[in-house]
C-alpha cells in the first residue's frame, strides 16, 4: 500500500511564496500573542503552590473557594482537574509566610470542613528563587539545543540549507509557543521537554528532506534548483507523511489516555509535529531556494563520510 504514488515530481516550490507568506503571518501573530497575552507560565516557572485534592463525590468548587477565602487564600485559583471529583488549587507565591507550610494548612482546612474523607493527591511547591532558576535553565536549554543543532547542521550541510533548517526550527517553536499563548495553556517543565523533543523531531524531518535534496542535485544534472527540490520533497513525501502519521497517532493516544498531567505535553508535540512536517516541506527548503541554493554550491565538496554513497551499482 502507498499513500502517494507520483510519476512526476509535484511542484511544491510553486507554493514557496504563499507558504512563506503564511508562515510570516503565523509568526507575526505568534509574536503578537506572546507580547500581548504572554505565556501562561506554570507553577514550575512562577513559583507558588498547587494542591490537588481528591473527593469521593463531585466537589463543590464554590464551597472550596469559600473555605479558602476564610483562611486568607481569597486569591487561590480553584479548578476541576481531570474530573469533577478532583480539585486543583493554585496559590500564587506570597511574601512573609513560610510558603512550604501553605499546603499543610490548606489540607487541614479542607479535611476539617469536608463531610467525606478527602485525599491528598499531589502537592507541588516551588519557591520563587527556584522558579526563576528553572526559567533561566529552560531558556538556556532551548538556546543550547538550537545552537548545538545549528553547529551540527552547519557542519553537515551547505549554509543555505543550514540556515533554512534552523529558521524552520525556530518557526516551529515560535508558532507552538503562539498556540500556547492563544489558548493560554499552562506552560510547565513537561511542556518545555515537549518543545525540546519537538526541536529534535522537526530537525530530523528536515534533515531527511535535505539529505535527499543533496542527492537529487547530484542525480539531476540539468534541472533548476526548484525542480531538484521538488523531486527531493516528492520522493520523501511518503516517508514524511507515514512517520508523521505514526507519531501523531501515538500522540493522540497519549493525549486521550495519558491523563491530565501529560495533556499539555501531548498538545505541544501534536501541534508542533504538524507544524514541523509542514515547515520541513515548505519552509526549510523554500528558504534555501530563496537564498539562491543551486547546483554549483552542492558540488564539488562532497559531503564527508556518507555511507553507501560511494558504492557503485553492482550490476
Amino acid at each position: 500500500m502507498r499513500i502517494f504514488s507520483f510519476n512526476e515530481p509535484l511542484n511544491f516550490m510553486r507554493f514557496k511564496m504563499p507558504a512563506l507568506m503564511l508562515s510570516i503571518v503565523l509568526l507575526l501573530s505568534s509574536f503578537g500573542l506572546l507580547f500581548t497575552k504572554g505565556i501562561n507560565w506554570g507553577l514550575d516557572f512562577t513559583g507558588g503552590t498547587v494542591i490537588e485534592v481528591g473527593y469521593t463525590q463531585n466537589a463543590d468548587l464554590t464551597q472550596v473557594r469559600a473555605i479558602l477565602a476564610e483562611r486568607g487564600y481569597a486569591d487561590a485559583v480553584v479548578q476541576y482537574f481531570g474530573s469533577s471529583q478532583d480539585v486543583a488549587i493554585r496559590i500564587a507565591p506570597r511574601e512573609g509566610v513560610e510558603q512550604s507550610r501553605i499546603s499543610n494548612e490548606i489540607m487541614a482546612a479542607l479535611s476539617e470542613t469536608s463531610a467525606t474523607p478527602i485525599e491528598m493527591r499531589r502537592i507541588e511547591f516551588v519557591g520563587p528563587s527556584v522558579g526563576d532558576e528553572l526559567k533561566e535553565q529552560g531558556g538556556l536549554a532551548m538556546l543550547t539545543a538550537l545552537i548545538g543543532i545549528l553547529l551540527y547542521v552547519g557542519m553537515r550541510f551547505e549554509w543555505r540549507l543550514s540556515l533554512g533548517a534552523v529558521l524552520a526550527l525556530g518557526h516551529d517553536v515560535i508558532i507552538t509557543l503562539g498556540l500556547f499563548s492563544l489558548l493560554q495553556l499552562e506552560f510547565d517543565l513537561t511542556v518545555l521537554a515537549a518543545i525540546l523533543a519537538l526541536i529534535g523531531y522537526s530537525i530530523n524531518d528536515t534533515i531527511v528532506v535535505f539529505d535527499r535534496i543533496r542527492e537529487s542535485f547530484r542525480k539531476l544534472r540539468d534541472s533548476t534548483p526548484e525542480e531538484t527540490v521538488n523531486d527531493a520533497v516528492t520522493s520523501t513525501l511518503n516517508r514524511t507523511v507515514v512517520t508523521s502519521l505514526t507519531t501523531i497517532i501515538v500522540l493522540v493516544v497519549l493525549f486521550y489516555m495519558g491523563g491530565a498531567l501529560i495533556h499539555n505535553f501531548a498538545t505541544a508535540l501534536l501541534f508542533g509535529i504538524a507544524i514541523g512536517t509542514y515547515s520541513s516541506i515548505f519552509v526549510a527548503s523554500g528558504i534555501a531556494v530563496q537564498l539562491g541554493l543551486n547546483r554549483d554550491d552542492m558540488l564539488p565538496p562532497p559531503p564527508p563520510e556518507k555511507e553507501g554513497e560511494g558504492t557503485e551499482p553492482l550490476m
Partner: protein
Amino acid sequence: MLNQNPLWRYLVVIGVLLLALVYAMPNLYPEDPALNINATRGGVVLESTRQQLEQGFISEGVTPKSVTLENGQLLARFQSAEDQLRARQIAINLLGTVNYVTALNLVPTTPDWLAGIGATPMKLGLDLRGGVHFLMAVDMKAAIDKNINDMVGAFRADLREAKVRYRSVSADVDRGMVQLQLRSAEDVQAARSALGKLDRELVFTDGPAEFSLQVTLSENRLREIREYALEQNITIIRNRVNEIGVAEPLVQRQGADRIIVQLPGVQDPAQAKEILGATATLEFRLVDEQGDLGAALNGRLPPGSGLYYDRSGQPFLLENRVMLTGEHITNASSSYDEYSQPQVNISLDAQGGNLLSNATREAIGRRMATVFIEYKPGEQLQADGTPVLIKQEEVINAATIQARLGRSFRITGIGNPAEAQNLALLLRAGALIAPTQIIEERTIGPSLGQENIDLGMTAIMWGMVVVLIFMVIYYRVFGLIANLALVANLVLIIGFMSMIPGATLTLPGMAGIVLTVGMAVDANVLIFERIREEIAEGRSIQQAIHQGYDRAFATIADSNITTLLVALILFGIGTGPVKGFAITLAIGILTSIFTSVVGTRLLVNLFWGGRRVQSLPM
C-alpha cells in the same frame, strides 16, 4: 553473494535481545507490600524479635508471606496493602516507636536466579511510586554570621592572653568582619601578630578609624565553613529521615548549598516537613542570680547578662557566657524519671563533657537554664525572595545543678511527654549551625502514583497496538518485520532501563516511550520507502535491498544524532521527571537504530537475501 550475513551477526543480535529480555523480566513480577523494621541508633533486630513479630502477626490474623532478617534489618512481606497497613499497626504496638522504626515499603519479588545475575526491576520515579521530593536550601549567611560572632569572644580572650589592650571588639555581620578598636599603632601591630599567629586564615586590613583593625575570613575558610554547614545539614537530615521511617530515602547534595530529599511512599508530607524543617539547638547558660531582674526589665541590663523568657513569658536573667552549645550533643532520648515525670536524657561528646564539667565545677547549687533556639522564617524577605530566618530563643527549663555534670545528664521539668519526645528527637538529630528551608516540594499521593502507572501503561499499549496495525496494513510482510523490531525495541528499552543503575522511569519517561514507539518506525519507513524507490528505478531486488539499507542509513544516522543531542541537553538541565523523559528518549533512539537497521536487515536478508526473488511482499 549479496545480502547474506555471517552467522555471528545473527548470534550477536540474538544475544543482545536475550540479554535485554532477561534483564527486563524482573519487571513482570509484581511487588510485595512489605514492612521494613530497623532498630534505631545503630542497633540490630534480633532473631527473637523476628519470631515475636511473626507470631504477633499470625495471632492477629495477618499471615505474612515471609518474615526475614537481613543485615540486622527485618523485612516482612504481605499479600495485600491492607495486610501491610494492619501489620504496621501490630508491629508498632508490639515494638513501640522508640527503639524501632517501622516503614512501609514495596519490595520486588524477583526470583533468585534473576536476582543472582543482578537483574532488578526498573526504578520508579516519585511521580509513579508516590512520595515526597524536597529541595532544601542551607542558609549559608547564618553559618558565616555565627562564625563571625564566635570570633568576637575568641579574639577578646586571645588578646587578653597576649596582653594586648583594646578598646573594643565587635562583629559587623553585614560586612562579614570583626572590627577591632585599639589604643596605639603598636597595639594594632601586636594584635595583628597575636591573632594572625593563632589563625592563618584571617585577613587583616586597617580600618577607617585611627588604630582600628578589620578582620575578615579568607576565601579558603569561607569555603570550609560552607562545606561544613552543608555536610552537617546532610548528616542531620539523614538522621531525621531515619526518624520518619522511610524504606529507601534519598538525601543528596545538589550544588553548593542545596540538598535533595526524596522520601518514597511517605503518607503524610506535613509531618515530614515538620520534622525536616524544624531547626533547633540548645544553649546552656547559668542564671545570673546576683543581677537585678527588675532593673533589667526596665532596660538596665547588668553587664555580662541578658534577658530571656520562657514560653509563659516569665523573664530570666542569664549570663552571656554559654557553658555549652548543642553541637556537642551526641544523643538525646525522652523517658520518665522516678516520679513518672517526662525527662530528656542527653549525652555529650568528650569535648562537650569536659566543657560542661569545667563550667559546672564552681556552679553546684546554682541554676542552669536550657535555652531552646529555633529559626523560623519571618516577615521580611531577602533579596532572592526567601524569607529571612529569625532566631527565636526560649528558656525551656531552669534546673538547679545538683552535681558536677559530665558527659551524660538529664533535663527534667518538661511540660508533657510529647514535648519531651519532640525535644529529644530534634536534639538527637543534632544541632545545626545553619538553618535550612524547603524551597521546592513535589508530593504525589500513593493512589495518584498508581494511577499514573496505569495511564502510562495504557498509553504505551494502545500506541503500540495502533502503530503495529498501521505498519502491517501499509507494508504487509515487511510491516511485520518492522513490528518485530518495534517489539524488540520495547524490550531493549525496558531491559536497558532496568540495567542502568541511575535510570528512573517517570510519567514523562513513559510518555517518552510512547513517543519513541511512534518515531522508532521512522527508520524502517525510510528504508522500506528507499527499497521501493530502488525497485521502481529498475534495480534488481537484491540491489534494491542492499542500496535501500545503505543509503537510508546515512540519513537515519544524521537525523537521529540531532534528537540524541536534544535528549542529552534535556538530561543535563532537567530535574526528576523531565530527566526521566530524556533517558527514555535517548535509550529509545539508540535501541531503535539497532533494531530497525541492524535487526530488520538480518531478518530481511534471512528471508529474501541471496535468492532469486521476483518481488517483495511490501
